[in-house]
């Protein structure tokens, strides 16, 4: 593990469209946290990265979490660091929010809300889709 790779910005190579699909609630399983870490690491490779939140995955972005009582890290704050990692394409499916009584105002970061058809075509145009 060296800092070297991080410095290889602007290197040659093909830029692919990567999509990370988040469908799990935070804390109950380790998927949400692991998925976020993979995204942060992927940022070092300068690819075209999108993050999608559907189904229970929308719960990952809820504002105002307080994890002291269950003694785990509050990684919801880390979603706000994504911008600094140049990961700015965050998409949330409207139907998933509606089914949970949630709206954009309940989320900790700015996102683009898509209807299911828009989400489907976004998925269809990716080179690589990785699901958590």
């Amino acid at each position, binding site marked *: 593990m060296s800092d070297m790779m991080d410095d290889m910005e602007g290197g040659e190579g093909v830029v692919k469209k990567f999509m990370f699909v988040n469908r799990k609630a935070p*804390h109950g399983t380790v998927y949400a946290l692991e998925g976020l870490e993979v995204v942060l690491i992927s940022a070092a490779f300068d690819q075209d990265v999108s993050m999608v939140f559907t189904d229970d995955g929308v719960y990952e972005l809820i504002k105002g979490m307080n994890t002291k009582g269950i003694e785990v890290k509050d990684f919801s704050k880390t979603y706000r660091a994504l911008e600094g990692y140049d990961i700015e394409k965050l998409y949330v499916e409207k139907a998933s929010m509606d089914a949970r*009584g949630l709206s954009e105002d309940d989320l900790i970061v700015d996102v683009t809300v898509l209807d299911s058809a828009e989400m489907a075509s976004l998925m269809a145009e990716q080179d690589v889709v990785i699901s958590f």
Partner: protein
Amino acid sequence: MLHIVNKSATERNSLESCLRMATKGSAVLLIEDAVYAATQGSEAAAKIQSAMADLQIYALGPDMEARGMAGRVLDGVKLVDYGGFVDLVTEHSTCQSWL
């Protein structure tokens, strides 16, 4: 009987099975990802509300808070802390975990 559910109702059918099998007068404690079911506007909210006629519904407070949902708890659902969790277990002669 105390029923304990820890899975999200929008991902697994544990809560649904539990509510189908729980008999009148039983208690249901929602923990971990199951707590989302007891929040306003969730798809499972209606099931919880109708179940409250026959069952006592509890949810673990620290799990609600960790998920940022403490301000959205359905009326009639009682929040308990870890001490309350232990009390529920000791008050009931049997426990069933819907894993």
